[in-house]
């Protein structure tokens, strides 16, 4: 039995999913706690931790830029890949539309963050 099999392009998305999932598991809870709970409520960290000059400085620093980019982009690629699979599991076929919406969101988010970070200068 020989069928003509088409190679799947999934490795690209699967690797981004895996890297993002690992990064989210290692850093996600603490990042959410700090940026969404601790700092807005004024807990544990100095008042000016996320002040404009500090954050701008972080985003202009080479390491900080990379950190922000990797977090946003990989979290996006991780989540849209899972959602793409879940949509299929709930009866929405894994067709071109579903693919475009899911991976398109991640791609757009990645490009926007790259653009903003680039424009801020070094």
């Amino acid at each position: 039995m020989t069928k003509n099999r088409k190679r799947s392009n999934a490795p690209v998305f699967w690797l981004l999913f895996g890297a993002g999932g690992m990064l989210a598991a290692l850093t996600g809870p603490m990042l959410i706690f700090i940026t969404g709970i601790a700092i807005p409520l004024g807990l544990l960290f100095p008042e000016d931790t996320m002040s404009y000059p500090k954050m701008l400085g972080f985003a202009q620093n080479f390491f900080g830029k990379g950190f922000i980019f990797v977090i946003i982009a990989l979290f996006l690629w991780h989540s849209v890949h899972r959602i793409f699979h879940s949509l299929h599991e709930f009866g929405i076929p894994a067709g071109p539309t579903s693919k475009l919406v899911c991976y398109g969101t991640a791609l757009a988010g990645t490009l926007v963050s790259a653009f903003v970070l680039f424009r801020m200068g070094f």
Partner: protein
Amino acid sequence: MSKRRPYIRPMDGWWKKNPFFIEYVIHESTAFFVLAYALTLLVGLVRLGQGETAWSAWLASLKTPLAIVFHVCLLAGAVYHAFSWFKLMPVTLPPVRIGGRKLRADEIVTGGFVAAVAGAAFIYLLVWGLA
């Protein structure tokens, strides 16, 4: 003539039929929490790029009760993501060998949880260093 008429059962509601799949659907849906956080950060980044006024407005919006509740939900989702991610590692990783011995499943999971704590500590110290 063949009397065969194989019956194909529908898949509707497949995930409700087994507690194992209910857990699976819950841990898969943590993706919505990760996505929501990524988009929150993306908005913050865009606001940062627009200058000080925009950034301060964004920071102020994080202080509203709704934003706090939203982030508490995100935190719960992210913690469950981390928990289920490492719980599944014995299945998703190739065999891990240390000193010629294959690690048992529970050792891989424990290693994952230790890494998660170390990752959280790293982020905590990183932010302290910046502050």
